């Protein structure tokens, strides 16, 4: 089911009214006369938004948050560190993760259980357990607005309206004692200030958008099938017309047929609404189908990150190779293994140096001692592995700042691999 975003114009003009009821810093705005920054037709006069969208004109957003920095990319995380306090010490669940998501992009976050992908995503909206701390030095910039120093009240403004989440296992993620339609209408009514009626109507439209008949709005979650519940969660995530939707294992626990349907739905929503997506999953095939870029995480750090096509055809990090199965690596004469021996490390006391070294068949002495720096290669892939140091193959050391601005190494860019969208850094060449 594809309904252009204009049919969701309701959300748009609600956005324009821009209820800042929750935000204490921004002055309350309730009149439409307040200037609202818009992309698309009313884009900044210098042409292409520097967010790197390129040809992908999504015309998506009706408005940006008031504090948005003009020209800033959708989301940039720089050196994100989220640690959990236990009696025994600090669990370094996310330990120096940087990445960038552009408007209209879909990024896949992959890795084993416990690698920190969910924590990373939840850190973005700070839905974390009470013993979690986002370390100083981390920054999460949404349209240039740093969310990390914001107070809970200030941060609430951005939840769901800019970033929403589709949780896995929607049976538990939906309130069992309230009707589905109500739950979808709730953020429309409360966060956007719509009347009950309007919110209900909008919620019915959202349900249709995801392929659920309107009349099921009165159903309770347990009355829907697993696939329908997941769709309902997607509808709910779209309720406030967010800039970014995070899908936390949205297809796990669904059977393969339903999985395919959900992925198809996500893809069509992305296309028609110009959604940006962060998809968290341990199933790489999902990422291959749906995402433009992917970030492979291991033990709280980035192992490899870049365009999906590149990573899937020519993985560099040994961990990525194993995740992908039996892809022979042109650059190495090692034999790849089907399974990854060992267990993920204890993040309370992670290994020194490269955290993967205890399980890496290619581990060298340096791996045991020195944390591998992130190196960016001309094909747009970023790797943290001593096997792929800077210099060889055009790799250049990059910092978190570089990641944020997607600066390319000075060497001439290779032709992007087949399938890469025009929006990859290789073509923009900043």
């Amino acid at each position, binding site marked *: 089911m594809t309904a252009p975003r204009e049919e969701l114009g309701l959300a748009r003009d609600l956005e324009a009214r821009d209820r800042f009821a929750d935000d204490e810093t921004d002055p309350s705005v309730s009149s439409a006369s307040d200037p609202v920054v818009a992309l698309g037709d009313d884009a900044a006069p210098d042409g292409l938004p520097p967010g790197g969208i390129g040809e992908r004109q999504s015309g998506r957003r009706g408005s940006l948050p008031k504090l948005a920095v003009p020209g800033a990319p959708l989301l940039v995380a720089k050196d994100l560190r989220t640690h959990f306090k236990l009696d025994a010490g600090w669990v370094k669940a996310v330990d120096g993760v940087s990445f960038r998501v552009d408007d209209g992009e879909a990024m896949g976050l992959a890795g084993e259980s416990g690698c920190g992908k969910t924590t990373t995503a939840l850190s973005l909206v700070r*839905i*974390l*357990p*009470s*013993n979690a701390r986002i370390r100083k030095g981390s920054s999460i910039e949404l349209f240039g607005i740093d969310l990390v120093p914001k107070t809970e009240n200030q941060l609430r403004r951005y939840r769901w309206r800019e970033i929403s989440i589709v949780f896995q296992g929607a049976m538990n993620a939906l309130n069992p004692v309230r009707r589905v339609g109500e739950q979808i209408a709730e953020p429309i009514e409360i966060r956007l200030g719509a009347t009950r009626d309007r919110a209900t109507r909008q919620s019915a439209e959202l349900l249709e958008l995801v392929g659920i008949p309107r009349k099921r709005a009165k159903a309770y979650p347990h009355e829907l099938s697993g696939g329908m519940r997941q769709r309902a969660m997607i509808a709910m995530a779209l309720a406030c017309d967010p800039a970014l939707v995070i899908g936390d294992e949205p297809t796990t626990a669904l059977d393969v047929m339903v999985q395919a349907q959900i992925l198809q739905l996500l893809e069509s929503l992305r296309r028609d609404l110009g959604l940006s997506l962060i998809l968290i999953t341990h199933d790489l095939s999902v990422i291959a189908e749906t995402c433009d870029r992917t970030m492979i995480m291991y033990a709280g750090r980035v192992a490899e990150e870049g365009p999906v096509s590149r990573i899937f055809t020519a993985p560099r990090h040994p961990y990525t190779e194993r995740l992908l199965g039996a892809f022979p690596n042109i650059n190495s004469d090692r034999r790849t293994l089907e399974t990854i021996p060992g267990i993920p490390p204890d993040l309370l006391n992670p290994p020194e140096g490269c955290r993967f070294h205890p399980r890496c068949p290619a581990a060298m002495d340096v791996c045991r001692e020195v944390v591998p720096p992130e190196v960016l290669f001309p094909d747009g892939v970023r790797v943290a592995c001593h096997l792929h140091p800077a210099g060889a193959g055009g790799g250049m050391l990059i910092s978190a700042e570089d990641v944020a601005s997607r600066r390319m190494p000075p060497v001439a860019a290779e032709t992007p691999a087949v399938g890469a969208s025009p929006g990859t850094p290789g073509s923009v060449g900043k």
Partner: protein
Amino acid sequence: MTGSADFVPTGRSLRAERWRLRVRGAREFAGQFASRRDGLIGLAILSAFTLMALSPDLFVGAKETVVSATGTRLEPPSAAHILGADELGRDILNLTVHGARISMSIGLMATAITIVVGTSIGVAAGFLGSWTDSGLMRVTDFFLVLPTFVLAIVLAPVILDIIGPEAEFLGLRATLLVIVVVIGITSWATTARIIRSQTLSIRERMFVDRARVIGSGSGHIMRRHIFPNVVNLIVAQAVITFAAAVFIETSLAFIGLGDPFAPSWGQLLESAQSAGAPGLGAWWYIAPPATCVVLVVLSFTLVGNALDDILNPKAQVRR
């Protein structure tokens, strides 16, 4: 159970090994318990009361009687009587400390009955299953429904009548005996239910092993296999039951089922009530026994909660 053929065959080593494991388990447990502040406070309070119960004479001398009373009627606290005197002039501090022994021993015996009966029925029901289980559980559920306090009130005179007012057992006179029995009768059902659940889940686990335990009778299995695994639960339950037992005994004594010659705290409060202490503002008569009861029940509850959390952990994720 695998590899038992590789075990050193002498029974002695096996026992030594088991002992070593038990000691390590005990040490671990002690460590965990030490980190629970509420459990420690409870334990401290209980120890103090246990001391008081074991040797009250050490603290306040022999129990005062009407003959040895030196105070005036309902005398407020003074230098001579730190907590004042009752309506017969007896020192209240003295009576309260001596009351510890009565209250705690009644609680202990009632708990013993409850645990023994409850565990036996629970294990039997859970282990033997089918008809035994159904039958026992019907009875248990019935007792669970009955309001314990009212049942106790109704049973007490009946039992008293049956055993006769002169009966004595283990040094307890009839009235106290009745209270112990009555608390036991009315409290075993909860324990039975809980133990039965645990037994059922153990039985599921043991099924495979049971096939290997060739020829062992049910009794043997129950003793050697089921029982050690429910001990944790029993201990936690015992502590919680003790709290309830003291609570009920105090209430029963308060409404007149106590023994005036063996004044438990509840009995003291009954005397206070009869003497009109509340209306007269004689707080010194009421506060000591009342405080003791609350402290003991509270500390048993705290220790019981701590034990329950440690021995039967339920992991919870906090967001």
